[in-house]
């Protein structure tokens, strides 16, 4: 709440500038989120459920690929997605000057 009061007490042009920055920041966040959620959907619902039969025709070592995505691969990708998000967001925070320091 404190931060909001600070913003409104600034001169109009600067407040408008901050607002514009925040909007651009939000768009960048949504874009990154969209990409990562698309991957999230493809590896789990796509490879692990909807495409599991055709992928099971492909073998990697002792695994059928669809089975592997459903029981192993999707989980590895989930972990990578969150770390990627955390890392990318730190950069976006800094770029728009909204990082917590």
């Amino acid at each position, binding site marked *: 709440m404190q931060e909001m009061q600070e913003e409104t007490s600034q001169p109009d042009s600067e407040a408008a500038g901050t607002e514009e920055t925040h909007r651009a920041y939000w768009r960048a*966040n949504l874009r990154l989120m969209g990409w990562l959620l698309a991957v999230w959907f493809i590896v*789990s619902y796509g490879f692990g*459920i909807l495409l599991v039969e055709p992928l099971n025709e492909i073998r990697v070592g*002792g695994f059928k690929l669809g089975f592997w995505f459903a*029981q*192993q691969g999707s*989980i590895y990708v989930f972990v990578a997605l*969150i770390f990627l998000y955390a890392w990318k967001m730190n950069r976006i925070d800094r770029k728009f000057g909204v990082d917590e320091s």
Partner: protein
Amino acid sequence: MDLQTWTYLIVGLTFALYIGIAILSRVKTTKGFYVAGGHVSPLANGLATAADWMSAASFISMAGIISFSGHDGAYYLMGWTGGYVLLALLLAPYLRKFGQYTVPDFVGQRYYSKQARLVAVVCAIFVSFTYVAGQMRGVGVVFSRFLDVEIGLGVLIGMGIVFLYAVMGGMKGITYTQVAQYCVLIFAFLVPAIFISMAMTGEVFPQVGFGSTVLDASGKDTGIYLLDKLDGLHRELGFAAYTNGKKETIDVFFITAALMVGTAGLPHVIIRFFTVPRVRDARLSAGYALLFIALLYTTAPAVAAFARTNLIETVEGQAYASMPEWFQNWENTGLLAWVDKNDDGLIQYAPGGAFGKMPGDKSLKLVRDPERGSLGEPRYANPKADGPNELYVDRDIMVLANPEIARLPNWVIALVAAGGLAAALSTAAGLLLVISASISHDLLKNILMPGITEKQELLYARMAAGVAVCIAGYFGVNPPGFVAQVVAFAFGLAAASFFPAIVLGIFSKRMNREGAVAGMVVGIVFTAAYIIYFKFVNPEANTSAHWLFGISPEGIGTLGMLLNFAVSLTISRLTAPPPESVKRLVETIRVPR
């Protein structure tokens, strides 16, 4: 040393550790009690979240469920991990910025309404109690199996431990015991898994051994892949192939989604992200949490395949008289039973049941005859089921007995007991804190008695935690018959209520009180009605032919969530927009600084 001594020693040591942490992390403020002062590091929060999340069911039952359902077990694996991606991207950072103590706090303030807060409080308490009863039961089962203690006494000991650190230390005590409990449970899960993987495939990592070739008794590589061998064994015995799915695709899709979204909407998981100092810490600790969860969740399906292969090879077609000691041990617990249908003294394992239900029973319960059979085997009053199968195996045995089946040393078996207890206690504590905070903070401080001081609120919080421990313990000793059936409830309701309300509260500035309350009510009523109908009112009709679009009660929360979104968005557009102050609140939580 014998097994009993090892078990007492290891369980005793871990309990002493938890009590030590409880004494070191006492708190004196509500902020300390609800969110550990907000000073938890991302790594510690990741460890604590992983323990908080992985329950008795994840530790004891999940590998067994996968073992018996093969490929279809995947929806638990994906559902209970994929939810963390939603949590990290859609909820955790923003709720951390909002920075209060509970989920109803967010709902109440974002939707400027005590009614909305009340709906959230009721959901949070219901979901948490449903869940916690199962944890206490898990504590009792582990005690009775490994320490020869009555289930009731086991539950009582577990209650005492949780009471100590939850009431004294609140979130702070819970956080640091959960960190310790994660270490115990992951060690206990991985050690037997690694031993078994090395024995069966020569690979150290179970995740790799899972896809490798099996060794024969002398340790020579047979050149046959484990999963191919298992598929072959299944074919021989008349089971469907282990690596093929059996459920309808649409149902698997909806169940996976309900588990994912429900995971992201469970209050005891969400509140963990209030405990870190900054927004960036919330994002990072979600990554750590899933990494630590994935360690167990990628090992479990490997354990499932190893255990299944081991079990079939050990028992199928073998003489009952030649069974190893563990077989009798587990017969005595009622988790394993054999009936010699064709009087040949050999164990035949095949699809279908071995026993029928007793007249009047709703589910299968084995009833022992006082007399034993000619081979010394226990006998049962239950009727024999049709079909050739002679073996009854409870799925929990796959983790609990796996070390014995694989002939691992006693200390490893004792470790499994300590791990099961750690998993159950850590989850129970997290849930109890949600219940306690819902009552003292949301119900008393923010709705009924706004005048109370911080000191009084803290006292009420401790009392609520104490009472909740007792109620949970009562349900642990006298489990209501419906516990197993209502687990679908916890996820379905979290998916159909909290998740849409929180996501829309962050991502739509136009979302207002009317839309959110209508959406939550419609989502909950629809989901609850569907589950109650198929689970309690008309359980005979619980087959895919009668389900709406072929969606089982386990997956219906997804449809409830979609309904919630649709109703919320429609109603909010038809009613007055939220006040300016709320729009500014939304703008604030979207930006870290």
